[in-house]
Protein backbone atom coordinates (compact mmCIF):
# COMPACT_ATOMS: atom_id res chain seq x y z
CA UNK A 1 0.00 0.00 0.00
CA UNK A 2 1.37 3.37 -1.05
CA UNK A 3 -0.63 5.49 1.36
CA UNK A 4 -2.02 5.05 4.84
CA UNK A 5 -4.74 7.17 6.33
CA UNK A 6 -6.52 7.67 9.58
CA UNK A 7 -9.48 9.63 10.79
CA UNK A 8 -10.33 11.23 14.09
CA UNK A 9 -14.01 11.56 14.86
CA UNK A 10 -15.26 14.08 17.41
CA UNK A 11 -17.33 11.43 19.20
CA UNK A 12 -19.39 13.83 21.24
CA UNK A 13 -20.43 15.90 18.21
CA UNK A 14 -21.04 12.99 15.84
CA UNK A 15 -24.74 12.31 15.33
CA UNK A 16 -24.22 8.84 13.88
CA UNK A 17 -26.03 9.64 10.64
CA UNK A 18 -24.00 6.98 8.82
CA UNK A 19 -23.47 8.99 5.64
CA UNK A 20 -19.69 8.62 6.06
CA UNK A 21 -20.06 4.86 6.42
CA UNK A 22 -22.02 4.65 3.18
CA UNK A 23 -19.44 6.76 1.35
CA UNK A 24 -16.28 5.08 2.64
CA UNK A 25 -14.76 3.23 -0.35
CA UNK A 26 -12.60 0.95 1.83
CA UNK A 27 -15.18 0.04 4.48
CA UNK A 28 -12.97 1.57 7.13
CA UNK A 29 -15.75 3.27 9.03
CA UNK A 30 -18.62 1.83 11.00
CA UNK A 31 -20.99 3.08 13.64
CA UNK A 32 -19.99 2.14 17.16
CA UNK A 33 -22.13 0.00 19.39
CA UNK A 34 -21.52 2.48 22.15
CA UNK A 35 -23.35 5.77 22.26
CA UNK A 36 -22.15 9.28 23.03
CA UNK A 37 -23.63 11.74 25.51
CA UNK A 38 -26.51 12.47 23.17
CA UNK A 39 -27.27 8.81 22.61
CA UNK A 40 -25.87 8.58 19.10
CA UNK A 41 -23.89 5.61 17.79
CA UNK A 42 -20.94 7.63 16.63
CA UNK A 43 -18.71 6.76 13.68
CA UNK A 44 -15.31 5.17 14.24
CA UNK A 45 -12.53 3.42 12.33
CA UNK A 46 -13.62 -0.21 12.48
CA UNK A 47 -10.86 -1.24 10.08
CA UNK A 48 -8.04 1.25 10.57
CA UNK A 49 -5.64 -0.66 8.32
CA UNK A 50 -7.78 -0.10 5.26
CA UNK A 51 -8.02 3.71 5.57
CA UNK A 52 -6.36 5.55 2.68
CA UNK A 53 -7.09 9.05 3.94
CA UNK A 54 -9.21 9.75 0.86
CA UNK A 55 -11.30 12.37 2.80
CA UNK A 56 -14.61 11.15 1.37
CA UNK A 57 -16.04 10.62 4.84
CA UNK A 58 -15.15 14.12 6.03
CA UNK A 59 -16.31 15.63 2.75
CA UNK A 60 -19.84 14.32 3.16
CA UNK A 61 -20.02 14.74 6.95
CA UNK A 62 -22.79 17.25 7.69
CA UNK A 63 -21.40 18.07 11.12
CA UNK A 64 -17.73 18.48 10.21
CA UNK A 65 -16.68 16.12 12.98
CA UNK A 66 -14.12 14.11 10.98
CA UNK A 67 -10.47 15.09 10.62
CA UNK A 68 -8.45 13.12 8.09
CA UNK A 69 -4.73 12.35 8.12
CA UNK A 70 -2.65 10.73 5.41
CA UNK A 71 0.93 9.61 4.97
CA UNK A 72 2.79 8.34 1.94
CA UNK A 73 4.72 5.22 2.69
Amino acid at each position, binding site marked *: MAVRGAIVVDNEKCKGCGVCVANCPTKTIALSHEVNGKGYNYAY*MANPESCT*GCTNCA*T*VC*PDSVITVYR*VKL
Partner: protein
Amino acid sequence: MDIKDIIKEENKVYGKTPVLTDNVMHYCPGCSHGVVHKLIAEVIEEMGIQDKTIGVSPVGCAVLAYNYLDIDWEEAAHGRAPALATAIKRLNPDKYVFTYQGDGDLASIGCGEIMHACNRGENIVVIFINNAIYGMTGGQMAPTTLLGMVTATTPYGRNAELNGYPLRLTELLAQLDGTCYVTRQSVQNPASVRKAKKAIQKAFENSMKKKGTSFVEIVGTCNSGWKMNPVKANQWMEENMFAKYPLGDIKDI
Protein backbone atom coordinates in the same frame (compact mmCIF):
# COMPACT_ATOMS: atom_id res chain seq x y z
CA MET B 1 2.74 1.92 10.90
CA ASP B 2 0.95 2.88 14.06
CA ILE B 3 -2.21 4.95 13.90
CA LYS B 4 -0.75 7.54 16.22
CA ASP B 5 2.12 8.08 13.82
CA ILE B 6 -0.40 8.94 11.12
CA ILE B 7 -2.50 11.24 13.27
CA LYS B 8 -0.10 14.17 13.36
CA GLU B 9 -0.70 17.78 12.43
CA GLU B 10 1.72 17.59 9.48
CA ASN B 11 -0.27 14.69 8.01
CA LYS B 12 -3.65 16.43 8.25
CA VAL B 13 -5.38 16.53 4.88
CA TYR B 14 -8.89 17.56 5.85
CA GLY B 15 -10.45 19.14 8.90
CA LYS B 16 -13.09 21.56 10.01
CA THR B 17 -12.57 25.05 8.63
CA PRO B 18 -12.17 27.75 11.30
CA VAL B 19 -14.93 29.73 9.56
CA LEU B 20 -17.31 27.17 11.08
CA THR B 21 -17.90 27.83 14.77
CA ASP B 22 -17.61 25.08 17.39
CA ASN B 23 -21.36 25.12 18.01
CA VAL B 24 -23.07 21.77 17.50
CA MET B 25 -25.55 22.22 14.67
CA HIS B 26 -29.18 21.81 15.66
CA TYR B 27 -29.92 19.98 12.40
CA CYS B 28 -31.09 16.38 12.44
CA PRO B 29 -28.46 13.68 11.82
CA GLY B 30 -27.47 13.56 8.13
CA CYS B 31 -29.15 16.84 7.21
CA SER B 32 -27.87 18.42 3.99
CA HIS B 33 -27.81 21.85 5.64
CA GLY B 34 -24.68 20.91 7.55
CA VAL B 35 -22.80 19.98 4.39
CA VAL B 36 -23.81 23.18 2.60
CA HIS B 37 -22.90 25.32 5.63
CA LYS B 38 -19.49 23.69 5.57
CA LEU B 39 -19.01 24.33 1.86
CA ILE B 40 -19.86 28.02 2.21
CA ALA B 41 -17.49 28.26 5.18
CA GLU B 42 -14.71 26.56 3.23
CA VAL B 43 -15.21 28.85 0.24
CA ILE B 44 -15.10 31.90 2.52
CA GLU B 45 -11.92 30.61 4.15
CA GLU B 46 -10.21 29.76 0.89
CA MET B 47 -11.14 33.09 -0.70
CA GLY B 48 -9.98 34.91 2.44
CA ILE B 49 -13.19 36.93 2.67
CA GLN B 50 -14.37 36.27 6.23
CA ASP B 51 -14.22 39.98 7.07
CA LYS B 52 -15.93 40.96 3.82
CA THR B 53 -18.88 38.58 3.90
CA ILE B 54 -22.37 39.27 5.20
CA GLY B 55 -24.81 36.38 5.30
CA VAL B 56 -28.59 36.60 5.39
CA SER B 57 -30.34 33.69 7.08
CA PRO B 58 -33.95 32.74 6.41
CA VAL B 59 -36.91 31.53 8.40
CA GLY B 60 -36.99 27.76 8.47
CA CYS B 61 -34.49 25.19 9.65
CA ALA B 62 -31.57 27.43 8.68
CA VAL B 63 -32.86 30.35 10.73
CA LEU B 64 -30.01 29.74 13.15
CA ALA B 65 -27.33 29.51 10.45
CA TYR B 66 -25.71 32.48 12.16
CA ASN B 67 -24.73 30.18 15.01
CA TYR B 68 -22.51 28.12 12.72
CA LEU B 69 -20.63 30.39 10.31
CA ASP B 70 -18.28 32.81 12.01
CA ILE B 71 -19.20 35.84 9.92
CA ASP B 72 -21.54 38.80 10.33
CA TRP B 73 -25.17 37.91 9.74
CA GLU B 74 -28.61 39.36 9.38
CA GLU B 75 -31.61 37.16 10.05
CA ALA B 76 -34.50 37.97 7.72
CA ALA B 77 -38.27 37.72 7.99
CA HIS B 78 -39.75 34.73 6.17
CA GLY B 79 -38.95 34.97 2.46
CA ARG B 80 -37.45 38.45 2.56
CA ALA B 81 -33.75 37.56 2.55
CA PRO B 82 -33.24 38.79 -1.05
CA ALA B 83 -34.67 42.22 -0.08
CA LEU B 84 -32.22 42.46 2.81
CA ALA B 85 -29.36 41.30 0.62
CA THR B 86 -30.30 43.84 -2.07
CA ALA B 87 -29.91 46.73 0.35
CA ILE B 88 -26.84 45.30 2.06
CA LYS B 89 -25.03 44.88 -1.25
CA ARG B 90 -26.12 48.20 -2.75
CA LEU B 91 -25.09 50.08 0.37
CA ASN B 92 -21.90 48.03 0.82
CA PRO B 93 -20.73 47.08 -2.68
CA ASP B 94 -17.33 45.97 -1.35
CA LYS B 95 -18.95 43.15 0.64
CA TYR B 96 -19.74 39.60 -0.44
CA VAL B 97 -23.43 39.18 0.32
CA PHE B 98 -25.29 35.90 0.24
CA THR B 99 -28.71 34.63 1.23
CA TYR B 100 -29.31 31.12 2.47
CA GLN B 101 -32.90 30.04 1.98
CA GLY B 102 -35.02 26.93 1.99
CA ASP B 103 -37.79 26.02 -0.41
CA GLY B 104 -40.64 27.31 1.74
CA ASP B 105 -38.83 30.57 2.39
CA LEU B 106 -37.62 31.18 -1.17
CA ALA B 107 -40.07 29.42 -3.45
CA SER B 108 -43.30 30.06 -1.54
CA ILE B 109 -43.60 33.10 0.69
CA GLY B 110 -40.51 34.76 -0.76
CA CYS B 111 -41.29 34.14 -4.43
CA GLY B 112 -41.73 37.85 -5.10
CA GLU B 113 -38.51 38.96 -3.46
CA ILE B 114 -36.30 36.35 -5.13
CA MET B 115 -37.86 37.00 -8.53
CA HIS B 116 -37.26 40.74 -8.36
CA ALA B 117 -33.81 40.57 -6.78
CA CYS B 118 -32.75 38.23 -9.59
CA ASN B 119 -34.48 40.36 -12.20
CA ARG B 120 -32.67 43.48 -11.00
CA GLY B 121 -29.46 41.50 -11.27
CA GLU B 122 -28.41 42.18 -7.70
CA ASN B 123 -24.77 41.20 -7.32
CA ILE B 124 -25.49 38.71 -4.59
CA VAL B 125 -25.23 34.97 -4.08
CA VAL B 126 -28.35 32.96 -3.38
CA ILE B 127 -28.03 29.50 -1.87
CA PHE B 128 -31.35 27.69 -2.22
CA ILE B 129 -31.87 24.46 -0.31
CA ASN B 130 -34.60 22.38 -1.91
CA ASN B 131 -35.62 19.38 0.16
CA ALA B 132 -39.22 19.43 -1.00
CA ILE B 133 -40.67 19.94 2.45
CA TYR B 134 -41.10 22.39 5.34
CA GLY B 135 -38.65 20.96 7.86
CA MET B 136 -38.82 23.40 10.77
CA THR B 137 -42.59 23.44 11.12
CA GLY B 138 -42.88 19.68 11.04
CA GLY B 139 -42.86 18.39 7.49
CA GLN B 140 -45.64 20.18 5.63
CA MET B 141 -45.93 20.46 1.84
CA ALA B 142 -43.52 22.85 0.13
CA PRO B 143 -43.98 24.32 -3.35
CA THR B 144 -41.28 21.87 -4.41
CA THR B 145 -42.93 18.76 -2.91
CA LEU B 146 -43.15 16.03 -5.54
CA LEU B 147 -46.51 14.74 -6.77
CA GLY B 148 -47.62 11.83 -4.65
CA MET B 149 -45.23 12.74 -1.85
CA VAL B 150 -46.70 12.35 1.61
CA THR B 151 -46.28 15.30 3.96
CA ALA B 152 -48.08 16.52 7.07
CA THR B 153 -50.43 18.62 4.92
CA THR B 154 -50.65 16.12 2.04
CA PRO B 155 -51.29 13.01 4.12
CA TYR B 156 -52.57 11.15 1.04
CA GLY B 157 -49.79 12.40 -1.19
CA ARG B 158 -49.51 15.64 -3.16
CA ASN B 159 -52.32 15.80 -5.62
CA ALA B 160 -52.00 18.19 -8.58
CA GLU B 161 -55.68 19.03 -8.62
CA LEU B 162 -55.72 19.86 -4.94
CA ASN B 163 -52.20 21.21 -4.41
CA GLY B 164 -50.82 22.27 -7.77
CA TYR B 165 -47.51 21.12 -9.20
CA PRO B 166 -43.92 21.03 -7.92
CA LEU B 167 -42.39 24.44 -8.62
CA ARG B 168 -39.14 24.51 -10.56
CA LEU B 169 -38.24 28.04 -9.61
CA THR B 170 -34.61 27.69 -10.60
CA GLU B 171 -35.53 27.18 -14.24
CA LEU B 172 -37.77 30.26 -14.04
CA LEU B 173 -35.00 32.39 -12.57
CA ALA B 174 -32.63 31.31 -15.31
CA GLN B 175 -34.99 33.03 -17.77
CA LEU B 176 -34.40 36.41 -16.16
CA ASP B 177 -31.89 38.80 -17.69
CA GLY B 178 -30.56 39.67 -14.24
CA THR B 179 -29.15 36.23 -13.41
CA CYS B 180 -25.65 35.34 -14.60
CA TYR B 181 -25.19 31.92 -13.06
CA VAL B 182 -27.97 29.48 -12.25
CA THR B 183 -27.11 25.95 -11.27
CA ARG B 184 -28.58 22.96 -9.46
CA GLN B 185 -26.32 20.79 -7.34
CA SER B 186 -26.53 18.19 -4.59
CA VAL B 187 -24.37 17.04 -1.68
CA GLN B 188 -25.12 13.37 -1.10
CA ASN B 189 -21.71 11.92 -2.04
CA PRO B 190 -18.11 13.14 -2.26
CA ALA B 191 -18.23 13.88 -5.99
CA SER B 192 -21.43 15.93 -5.73
CA VAL B 193 -20.12 17.77 -2.66
CA ARG B 194 -16.98 18.79 -4.53
CA LYS B 195 -19.01 19.97 -7.52
CA ALA B 196 -21.37 21.91 -5.29
CA LYS B 197 -18.43 23.61 -3.63
CA LYS B 198 -17.05 24.71 -7.00
CA ALA B 199 -20.45 26.12 -7.88
CA ILE B 200 -20.64 28.06 -4.61
CA GLN B 201 -17.15 29.42 -5.14
CA LYS B 202 -18.00 30.55 -8.66
CA ALA B 203 -21.11 32.26 -7.34
CA PHE B 204 -19.11 34.16 -4.72
CA GLU B 205 -16.52 35.18 -7.32
CA ASN B 206 -19.28 36.38 -9.67
CA SER B 207 -20.68 38.69 -7.02
CA MET B 208 -17.68 41.01 -7.34
CA LYS B 209 -17.75 41.02 -11.15
CA LYS B 210 -21.00 43.00 -11.49
CA LYS B 211 -22.42 40.26 -13.67
CA GLY B 212 -25.71 39.87 -11.88
CA THR B 213 -27.23 37.37 -9.51
CA SER B 214 -25.71 33.93 -8.95
CA PHE B 215 -28.20 31.30 -7.89
CA VAL B 216 -27.15 27.92 -6.54
CA GLU B 217 -29.89 25.42 -5.81
CA ILE B 218 -28.87 22.45 -3.71
CA VAL B 219 -31.26 19.52 -3.85
CA GLY B 220 -31.10 18.14 -0.34
CA THR B 221 -32.72 15.69 1.99
CA CYS B 222 -34.94 16.08 5.02
CA ASN B 223 -34.63 12.79 6.83
CA SER B 224 -37.06 13.70 9.58
CA GLY B 225 -39.61 15.14 7.20
CA TRP B 226 -39.25 12.30 4.73
CA LYS B 227 -39.25 9.79 7.58
CA MET B 228 -36.20 7.88 6.34
CA ASN B 229 -32.76 7.32 7.71
CA PRO B 230 -30.09 9.61 6.23
CA VAL B 231 -28.53 7.01 3.91
CA LYS B 232 -31.92 5.91 2.64
CA ALA B 233 -32.95 9.52 2.17
CA ASN B 234 -29.95 10.14 -0.06
CA GLN B 235 -30.92 7.15 -2.17
CA TRP B 236 -34.53 8.26 -2.34
CA MET B 237 -33.40 11.71 -3.44
CA GLU B 238 -31.30 10.25 -6.26
CA GLU B 239 -34.15 8.02 -7.39
CA ASN B 240 -37.00 10.52 -7.12
CA MET B 241 -35.90 14.12 -6.79
CA PHE B 242 -33.37 14.32 -9.61
CA ALA B 243 -35.95 13.39 -12.24
CA LYS B 244 -37.96 16.51 -11.41
CA TYR B 245 -34.94 18.58 -10.40
CA PRO B 246 -32.13 17.58 -12.76
CA LEU B 247 -28.61 18.54 -11.69
CA GLY B 248 -26.23 20.77 -13.58
CA ASP B 249 -25.71 24.33 -14.77
CA ILE B 250 -28.81 25.90 -16.27
CA LYS B 251 -27.16 29.22 -17.09
CA ASP B 252 -23.57 30.40 -16.92
CA ILE B 253 -22.53 33.65 -18.55
